[in-house]
């Protein structure tokens, strides 16, 4: 049994046609289920918990990266499979091999399920990454410590990996969300014209299972999946094979 959760931004009338086409396609594929449209009064957690009580086995999040990140935290401890339908551009969907809009329905119908790792910061899960925009950070790997030596750098703790121009990190199997490891990535950046930020190629990559993120002076902020914010020190660990998710054959890992 499928439960489709539409994120709040999809209530806008400009998405009406896209969602109609999607619903028709799901009906054709015979994977139609209960649809729940989120709004200010309708909480995602309550909707999913009610659905699971009624026997839902697959929860499908329809929305963007923020939607998928929010839902992961709720279903990580539940015995359900996650499906995603991206509306618009989505990094998570690209890595998992799910196309945009109604085409995602075909991938859902194939039900190619993978168990992927999740990251965990202070009991909160994340599917994509945690980022720190401060070079005062110290990553403590127990036996050794790492700190950036440049003034401008983005420190990321990645689970799904990070997109590069040629995706060599996936071809060389550097960052794989099924390997039981997270990757700490330190990427020096420089500001370009019109305050555009360019990431330089000289990234540092450290695979790990558990680290402590601290700072040299004032506590720094750690943002997970662009939604929750923590202050250092925090412990970051991998939760291996924590999430059952439907993936496409075009996935990057």
């Amino acid at each position, binding site marked *: 049994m499928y439960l489709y959760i539409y994120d709040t931004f999809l209530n806008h009338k400009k998405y009406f046609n896209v969602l109609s086409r999607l619903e028709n396609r799901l009906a054709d594929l015979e994977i139609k289920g209960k649809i729940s449209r989120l709004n200010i009064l309708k909480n995602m957690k309550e909707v999913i918990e009610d659905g699971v009580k009624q026997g839902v086995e697959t929860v499908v999040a329809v929305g963007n990266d923020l939607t998928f990140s929010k839902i992961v935290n709720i279903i990580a401890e539940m015995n359900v499979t996650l499906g995603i339908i991206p509306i618009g551009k989505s990094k998570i969907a690209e890595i998992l091999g799910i196309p945009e809009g109604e085409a995602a329905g075909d991938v859902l119908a194939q039900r190619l399920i993978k168990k992927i790792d999740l990251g965990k910061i202070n009991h909160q899960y994340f599917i994509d990454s945690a980022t720190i925009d401060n070079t005062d950070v110290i990553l403590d790997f127990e*036996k050794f410590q790492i700190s950036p030596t440049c003034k401008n750098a983005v420190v990321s703790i990645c689970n799904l990996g990070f997109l590069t121009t040629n995706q060599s990190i996936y071809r*060389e199997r550097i960052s794989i969300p099924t390997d039981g490891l997270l990757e700490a990535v330190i990427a020096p950046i420089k500001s370009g014209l019109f305050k555009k930020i360019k990431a330089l190629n000289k990234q540092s990559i450290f695979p790990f299972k558990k680290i402590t993120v601290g700072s040299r002076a004032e506590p720094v902020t750690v943002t997970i999946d662009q939604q929750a914010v923590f202050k250092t020190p925090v412990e970051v660990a991998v939760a291996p094979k924590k999430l059952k998710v439907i993936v496409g054959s075009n996935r990057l890992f």
Partner: protein
Amino acid sequence: MFKNEQDKQIKKVETIIGPSVKVQGDFTGDGDVIVEGIVVGNLKTKNHLKIGAGARVQAEIEAQSAFIAGEVSGNLTVLEEVELTASAKIKGDISASLISVEKGAKINGRISMNGAKKIEGQEAKTGK
């Protein structure tokens, strides 16, 4: 001649210590390790180690094989082959089964080629 050979050797990169990073402590890796930044302490890997031209390493090093183009202060224990390029500067003893030294490399230390001791937790593959 060295560039092509080092590319062949790096099969699976796991850790990249970039030029904008400093590592302090006992670093241990299972896969191939590339160092372009600063390492202070110990550096150990069960696979290939590449130390780039801009890297500065003050550490005791243990690796299966190594390609060195940067500065190293500390003893170097390599199970198989170690390659030193013209830009390499080594201040410490080298122990390896096979050594290639390019013209211009600076070595201040003893070189022993009796076959390095096996790296902790790993069987020697060379048998030399």
